[in-house]
């Protein structure tokens, strides 16, 4: 593999990630400190706690990324950093740390959009992984990125060019997983817990509503959330459980069926619209990214849709779907090769969009 070697820094939400990536594809080293356990007691991310944890862990994560990487600063061609979207305080830690490193080591600084990072995770190869064994994304392409903070569908005719096809008009899909996970007493984060519960479902006949939003590629999950509250309350009443006692939990059987029904609804609207968009633009590949792309049901359904269309589905392995530094290095390499450089006054852009419609 050839191409620039980037050190990349990601701190937009609750993972501190630093990676070394070669040529925008090959992972040399990828270290992530996740704060999930830190935020679990409050059932969601506490921005100020997140920023402080980034400050606490960013140096150890950098040291760990270098450890055993077999390369040094002299080999590095640039430093890529996420500058948005995300939590302002969290972004600031990574940005200012990266700027200081770029200045001290006299390396170009590259500002990367976090959402673009999720897309470019589709190009990553693990150390030692055979390049020919992994399909490279082909243009034109549709990319679906689904996470706790974002849900969008974009068309890519070429590298770094995006046309936004659809997005959520209210909650992100991952947020819906968190909220329904909490309703079912499954804890935080909701995504993995709901997937695990859904896998134990037997009857698989609970029907949650789907908001199709007409012909648009947009999604809405707030109605689903309201419906979930009603369906969970009805199931609790069936089992004679009091409304107001969270310790009185639904039976495992009912929890599994409800988790399955909810997950099936989310997967259905995401996959159906993505497949329709792929058909409409004649996509030669379909790319899936973001934390919710780690969901096995979504991966299976998208694989079936892609199969029917005859276009390859590209999904990073679960560890590269959730936030990490390597994906920022993958996108950053493209931006570096396109001649982009960020200045030392780079600041956080908490609501940076990926693209306009």
């Amino acid at each position: 593999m050839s191409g620039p070697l980037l050190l990349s820094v990601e701190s937009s939400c609750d993972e501190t990630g630093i990676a070394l990536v070669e040529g925008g594809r090959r992972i040399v080293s990828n270290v992530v400190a996740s704060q999930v356990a830190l935020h679990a007691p409050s059932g969601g991310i506490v921005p100020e706690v997140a920023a402080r944890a980034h400050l606490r862990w960013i140096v150890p994560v950098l040291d760990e990324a270098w450890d055993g990487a077999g390369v040094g600063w002299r080999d590095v061609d640039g430093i890529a950093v996420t500058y948005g979207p995300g939590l302002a305080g969290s972004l600031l830690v990574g940005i200012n740390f990266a700027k200081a490193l770029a200045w001290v080591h006299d390396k170009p600084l590259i500002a990367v959009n976090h959402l673009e990072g999720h897309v470019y995770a589709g190009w990553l190869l693990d150390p030692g992984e055979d390049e020919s064994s992994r399909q490279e994304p082909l243009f034109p392409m549709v990319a679906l990125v689904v996470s706790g903070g974002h849900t969008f569908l974009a068309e890519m005719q070429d590298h770094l060019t995006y046309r936004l096809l659809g997005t959520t008009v209210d909650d992100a899909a991952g947020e819906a997983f968190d909220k329904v996970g909490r309703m079912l007493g499954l804890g935080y984060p909701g995504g993995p817990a709901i997937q695990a519960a859904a896998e134990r479902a037997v009857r698989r006949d609970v029907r949650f509503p789907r908001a199709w939003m007409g012909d648009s590629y947009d999604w809405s999950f707030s109605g689903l959330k309201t419906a979930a509250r009603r369906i969970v309350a009805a199931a609790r009443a069936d089992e004679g459980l009091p409304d107001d006692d969270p310790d009185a939990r639904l039976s495992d059987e009912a929890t599994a069926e409800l988790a399955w029904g909810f997950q099936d609804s989310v997967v259905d609207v995401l996959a159906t619209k993505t497949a329709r968009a792929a058909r409409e633009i004649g996509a030669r590949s379909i790319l899936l990214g973001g934390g919710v792309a780690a969901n096995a049901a979504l991966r299976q359904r998208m694989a079936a849709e892609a199969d029917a269309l005859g276009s390859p589905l590209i999904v990073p392995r679960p560890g590269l779907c959730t936030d990490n530094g390597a994906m920022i290095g993958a996108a950053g390499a493209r931006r570096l090769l396109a001649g982009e450089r960020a200045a030392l006054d780079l600041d956080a852009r908490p609501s940076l969009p990926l693209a306009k419609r």
Partner: protein
Amino acid sequence: MSADLKPEMILAIDTATTRVVVALGTGEGSVARSTSWEAGYRHGETLLPAIERILGQEGVARSVLAGIVVGTGPGAFTGLRVGLATAKGLAHGLGIPLVGLSTAEALLSADGAPGAVLLLPAGPSDRILVRPGEEPSLLRGGIEPELRDGESLVAVDLVDRAPPDALTRGEAARAGLGAALLRSGVPRLSSALTQGTVGLAALVPEYITLPRGARAGSGTVAWSRDLR
């Protein structure tokens, strides 16, 4: 300072208040150049360009910096994150020690008067009171500080929320903040060097009130060296 620090230029940074302070000092702790500017909440855009400019003006190459002193607050979250993240990146990149000092203690030391107590903002309505060597105390909105005999107020970032004479003293103290950080930071840098403890990781901002939603000692982070 000991002969360990050559050629003995020390950088001091403080971003805990609305004015960013950057000072360049000698290994003896005296100030070579100090500057400050109103940053509001945009510390991140201006800090590193200013450091670059100041080193340029003094003809100091970044590679000759021998240590960094950074103010750890208490103060505004936004500014503190920028200052600490920048200081950690610089210290790590240059392989030099970094020490964190209380911004409040440094401001009191800059004021220098016996009995001085510091009043700082804590959000839009609360304030905090800092006595030298004591735990800061939080004053909820509208609560006036009870001063002990011989005490007098120094106030920073509290226009219209503190007496005018306290604010005047606050401005003067802040003008001396760079010098105060260098004065107390340089001996600490020397001992950090001799003990071989750089302590880059552990340095986090000082908060008087725990951020909303935080619980003391709640959880930790999980590591993954994400290689299959």
